[in-house]
């Protein structure tokens, strides 16, 4: 079916995809988690409402989320070149993936943290808890199940974006699917890469759901 060389290439593609997705998810959270916390805390019903700060981050997040990923990737090529010296390949794709994922993750984090019962926050305030204590010991811990579920969704979204980046020499499985499956019309490679992408998505989903279940104390045993 596939030659040995092609099999090696696909295996390398899996590695590249994992590297791109996981690194982008990580850096995406480095940007998105603080931003999501800021959106929650400064929001209208937050513990430190601040309309100006909220609006600034609200607009930033909306702008980045409304640019189609492929166009964002092209727009960011100069920045990527500046940071990494080149604008193609798996590692280079991490830059636009991170920038696309950050604001998206921020929204996910915001929605998770907003699920925390306001009464519990009020109770913490009545005990004299500071803003930091409430962020770390109430918001992030109480919302942890929802945060993990949303991290799973975010990771799979990044997986989808990473495959899209293949159209511009992004590396990974998407790249292989486009170069071999589409330009050279080798359907067998196309199908193998698609199946692998589906399997990866399933895997992320399973791991995420498993973790979210294990850390949830709201279940009756």
């Amino acid at each position, binding site marked *: 079916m596939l030659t040995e060389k092609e099999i090696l290439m696909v295996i390398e593609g899996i590695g590249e995809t994992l590297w791109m997705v996981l690194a982008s998810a990580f850096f995406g959270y480095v940007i998105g988690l603080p931003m999501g916390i800021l959106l929650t805390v400064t929001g209208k019903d937050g513990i430190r409402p601040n309309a100006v700060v909220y609006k600034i981050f609200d607009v930033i997040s909306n702008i980045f989320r409304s640019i189609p990923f492929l166009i964002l990737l092209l727009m960011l090529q100069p920045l990527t070149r500046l940071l990494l010296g080149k604008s193609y390949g798996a590692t280079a794709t991490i830059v636009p993936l991170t920038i696309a994922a950050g604001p998206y993750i921020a929204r996910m984090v915001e929605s998770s943290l907003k699920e925390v019962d306001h009464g519990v926050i*009020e*109770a913490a305030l009545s005990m004299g*808890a500071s803003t930091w204590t409430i962020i770390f010991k109430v918001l992030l811990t109480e919302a942890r199940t929802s945060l993990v579920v949303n991290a799973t969704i975010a990771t799979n979204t990044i997986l989808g974006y990473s495959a899209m980046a293949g159209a511009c020499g992004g590396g990974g499985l998407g790249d292989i699917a486009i170069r071999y499956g589409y330009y050279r019309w080798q359907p067998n490679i196309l199908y193998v890469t698609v199946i692998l992408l589906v399997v990866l998505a399933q895997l992320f989903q399973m791991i995420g759901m498993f973790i979210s279940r294990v850390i949830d*104390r*709201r279940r009756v045993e």
Partner: protein
Amino acid sequence: MEPIIKIEHLEKEFKLKEMDVHALRDVSLDIHKGDIYGIIGMSGAGKSTLVRCLNFLERPTGGTVTVNGKDLSKLSEKELREARKDIGMIFQHFNLLMQRSVIDNVCFPLEIAGMQKAQARKKAMEYLKIVGLEEKAKAYPVQLSGGQKQRVAIARVLASDPQILLCDEATSALDPQTTKSILQLLKEINRQYGITIVVITHEMAVVQEICSHVAIIDQGNLAEHGKVEDIFLAPKSREAKRLIYQGYEKVAEMKGKRCVRIVFSENSSFEPVIGNMVLAFKSPVNILYANTKDLDGVAKGEMVLQLPEDEEIGHKMIAYLKNARLAVEELEGYVD
């Protein structure tokens, strides 16, 4: 003696898009150390806003709240956080941290205070013992009943050694039996630790059960306040009457010509006052409503009687009841 909580001309206005809501108007109240002070009103009366102004979870728009001699509005944010450690609060929906075990919930205020973990756990365990839940230390809130959750919340509040405990409808989500046991626990806490308790409720029964004083809030205004027994004997304001008579509002629809409300407060439980009266006048009375109980041999509570239509007998009966050391009040058209 200087009151532990002094509320002066408190105002709270919420600015909403459509209109401004005046939640509290010129409320002044003194709460003394050791009191169990009930604040009662219909829902939407402003009592929850009032209690939130006592620890500045809600910032008043006018007037002052002085707790332990400190004007809360003059405190910096840090000082306010410190002041709040002296003012515990429990809630209708318990507000426990659902992802923390029972003992870790009780440890939470100690963590905020910066106590070492081992020491905090030891202290938390002691408070769990006081509320009778030490064997549930490792359980999670989801595994507890409502009453148990409120006990954990009480242990958590006690852990920070407060001088004041605010209870915001703390028993409203509980069944009558559990309500009784939680109220009993609050009473004990008040007696043993001298903690001043402020109870927000819409149920007169809760006030009667544990409160020494009561304030009645009606549409943001303080309608009436004073000792529970005084207000219960002779409610003056319309709102106080409505709250005290709420138990027999329905009965009153079929009110007869002469209805009287009598309040038992000092008669012996063994003295058949009504029975004797009926025998003496050889004329029946109709008991429309009764809520009495025996407290250490003394009859406590109230009744609504429909007296015979005969004017003269009615008058004589009222005199008879008054003579029997009961508070008697004619109820001509007391319902709106």
